[in-house]
């Protein structure tokens, strides 16, 4: 039959793949859009191909097409997907079911969401193997335990008895990899498997995945937006944009000698030169010995934290999830009243509780959040959203308000026309810009930025950072910049506080904090940031002085 199509050694051969979806824009008739435009790729047995691009590039859609799967009404409308010598698109539903979980397995971005909370891990790990009848339960469980051990999970014999919520995010991601490997597939689709993890955890998971791929000779499609990550694991890299192929080549060629301008932009995206400002004489906001806990818990989320913020400067707070960065912001804004310690503003102490603070104090401290789309009322226009602080704090209404809104839109480099749009009509970067404008409208002295670029594509995030820096120069506003991303810190900070388990472990001007000698944790944090360098992963793992807290 279709065997003749197989080239020797080729596992997956996608030819002229075309994927479409129907969208329902508000107030317009439904229309078809093409998500993937005639993309072709081939993958040899045991090789790893990295698919890279921004959101909307079609990477996940292409990856899932190798399993004949379309997320949320997405349809494969053209081309061939030849797996092990046959076109799987001709196999129908039963054909898909037979290959899913047997020939091709999937590792999702958020293992925490991808595991069923109602079942024990082991039952989920061996489920596909038992379903396809490739092993008995005893054999499958033995195989799973061996995989847990290979992926260096703690207590490999017993971890399978746990429920998903009893295991950390980094461990779950490795269990998910074990789940994919358990049915001994020919191909695994890794869909951003480390994106949701802390850098310090990401490196362990990345190393575990890389070893597992090498030892089991499975082929993989590795989907990510992070070129530095994909450079560590893949043999070849394919760059995609808007559902079209941009460039496809060996890993070394893509990162060292990109041929396309877009690839070049991706490779060199991170650097913003930001000269550090010397701290002034008096900080306008100081946090002194703040200790805080949630509820009546005796677990302190913040332990004796002290930091100062100077007018017009940026203090970056870095650390992994659970280190207390966002809790510090909550303590400063009064959302979580500290148990001990004080926050002073302009020389006077701020009330601990938000409800006890006068409007003027509220105006001086504004916040921008990670998820711009849920931080805005979807039923209000951009003009209403930005105008609200003007009305609330200054009582500005009518034409004067509209003029100020237009001014603010201009400042965030968006035209007046956006004033009548709804948040749903904006891109991720535009939404975040509107949130920035809203916080600026209050003319605050301090804006707390909580992971504001984490949900954005690198190029878009870059634009947001440049905007923030420019606004700082114009408005002399200070930032408390919370992030887990050290590249961002280097680009924007004047001083840095490194947090670890509720404590500030290192604090000072950027140049001092980022210069050796390092304490163990800062060293771990710095050495965990992926570099666009082949072989970086092995070097970094070898050079580590402590294990990350996420394990």
């Amino acid at each position: 039959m279709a065997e003749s199509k197989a080239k020797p050694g080729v596992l997956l051969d996608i030819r002229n793949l075309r994927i479409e979806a129907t969208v329902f824009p508000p107030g317009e008739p439904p229309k078809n859009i093409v998500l993937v435009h005639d993309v072709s790729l081939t993958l040899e047995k045991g090789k790893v191909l990295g698919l890279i691009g921004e959101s909307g590039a079609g990477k996940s859609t292409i990856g899932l097409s190798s399993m004949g799967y379309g997320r949320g009404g997405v349809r494969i409308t053209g081309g061939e997907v030849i797996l092990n010598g046959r076109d799987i698109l001709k196999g129908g539903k039963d054909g898909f079911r037979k290959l899913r979980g047997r020939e091709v397995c999937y590792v999702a971005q958020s293992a925490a969401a991808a595991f069923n909370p109602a079942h024990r891990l082991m039952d989920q790990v061996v489920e596909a193997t038992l379903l396809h009848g490739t092993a008995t339960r005893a054999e499958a469980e033995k195989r799973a335990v061996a995989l847990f051990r290979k992926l260096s999970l703690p207590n490999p014999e017993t971890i399978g008895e746990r429920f998903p919520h009893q295991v950390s995010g980094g461990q779950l991601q490795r269990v998910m990899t074990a789940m994919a490997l358990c049915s001994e597939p020919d191909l695994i689709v890794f869909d951003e498997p480390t994106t949701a993890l802390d850098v310090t955890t990401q490196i362990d998971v990345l190393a575990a995945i890389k070893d597992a791929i090498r030892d089991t000779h499975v082929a993989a499609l590795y989907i990510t937006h992070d070129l530095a990550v994909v450079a560590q694991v893949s043999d070849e890299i394919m760059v995609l944009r808007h559902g079209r192929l941009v460039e496809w080549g060996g890993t070394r060629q893509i990162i060292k000698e990109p041929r396309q301008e877009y690839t070049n932009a991706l490779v060199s995206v991170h650097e913003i030169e930001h000269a550090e400002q010397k701290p002034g004489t008096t900080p306008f906001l100081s946090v002194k010995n703040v200790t805080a806990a949630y509820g009546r818990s005796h677990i302190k989320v913040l332990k004796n934290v002290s930091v100062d913020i100077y007018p017009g400067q940026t203090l970056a707070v870095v650390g992994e999830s659970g280190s207390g960065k966002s809790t510090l912001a909550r303590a400063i804004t009064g959302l979580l009243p500290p148990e001990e310690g004080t926050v002073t503003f302009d020389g006077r102490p701020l009330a601990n509780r938000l409800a006890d603070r006068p409007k003027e104090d509220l105006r001086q401290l504004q916040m921008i959040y990670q998820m711009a789309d849920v931080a805005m009322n979807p039923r209000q226009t951009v003009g209403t959203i930005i105008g609200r602080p003007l009305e609330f704090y200054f009582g500005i209404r009518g034409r004067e308000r509209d003029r100020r809104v237009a001014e603010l839109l201009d400042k965030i480099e968006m035209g007046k026309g956006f004033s009548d749009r709804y948040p749903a009509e904006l891109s991720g970067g535009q939404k975040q810009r509107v949130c920035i404008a809203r916080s600026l409208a209050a003319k605050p002295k301090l804006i707390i930025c909580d992971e504001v670029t984490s949900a954005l594509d690198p190029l878009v995030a870059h634009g947001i950072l440049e905007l923030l820096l420019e606004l700082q120069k114009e408005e002399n506003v200070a930032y408390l910049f919370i992030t887990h991303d050290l590249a961002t810190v280097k680009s924007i900070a004047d001083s840095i506080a490194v947090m670890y388990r509720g404590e500030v472990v290192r604090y000072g001007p950027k140049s001092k904090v980022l210069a050796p000698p390092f304490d163990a944790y800062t060293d771990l944090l710095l050495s965990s940031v992926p570099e666009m360098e082949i072989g970086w992963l092995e070097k970094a793992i070898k050079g580590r002085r402590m294990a990350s807290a996420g394990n």
Partner: protein
Amino acid sequence: MSSPILKLIAQRVALGILLLLAVSVLIFAGTQILPGDVAQAILGQSATPESLANLREQLGLNEPAYIRYFHWLGGVVTGDLGTAMSSGQDIATSIKGRLWNTLFLAFWAAIVAVPLAIILGLIAVRYRNGWVDKLISGLALASTSFPEFFIGYVLVYFFAVKWQIFPGISTVYDGMPFGERMQAITLPATALTLVVLAHMMRMTRAAILNVMQSAYVETAELKGLSAFNVIRKHAFPNAIAPIINVVMLNLAYLIVGVVVVEVIFVYPGMGQYLVDHVTKRDVPVVQAVGLIFAAVYISLNIIADIAAIVANPRLRHPK
């Protein structure tokens, strides 16, 4: 079983008891607000002021209301529900048989209705938005929309009058053979099933559809599970809490809401008993039945709460 679960369960039970006490106060107060009192009701038109005063003295009606409440409550707790005025019989003894009959009918209606509703819900999700889904939803909605007396009479017309398969009057008595008893309750049980089916079925469908968006459902699909197994093994266990709640509400309805159906089929259950004595203005009986209905309602809802707690793996297996 771990201590946080036990603590949550103890909280629920304590709350339930508190709620029941509050309801008992309401029931008692409600019957006090009604014009006239028991003495007047007993003596009726022929009452003279003297005989009224004597009877009030005898029944303890001159005591303040709160003392009478505690008397009543004390009796209820020790199993003494008082005496029916109309017949002079002990309420507890006459209720026992009636309650048993009502529970018998509710039990068999539930045995049919609950699994049927859940299975229909699962099928509706499997073929969601297709004609099977629409047919199931439409029929279930129609059966709920018809008033229960209408369904009852339609059933009687066809099955009892026209085809004469089942009796139209569901008389049951002590010592009746099981088979005959089942035949007698077939029509009322069917009417009840049709009434409660749609609510449970639609909740099952909605609760499962809600978790069908989850990433773990996609994971299951990508393992190659068939659509029905994805729903059964991965979606249903996570949708169970809201389903249990609706099932319990409907079970409670089967016990306390059967009044109309029991009257139509002349079934000697609690509902008939209540209706009979409301017309006779027999206040002690109405109080007793009201309290039992409240107790049933509250305990079934506590069971639903506890089941939802136990069904949550995060609570069952803490970190």
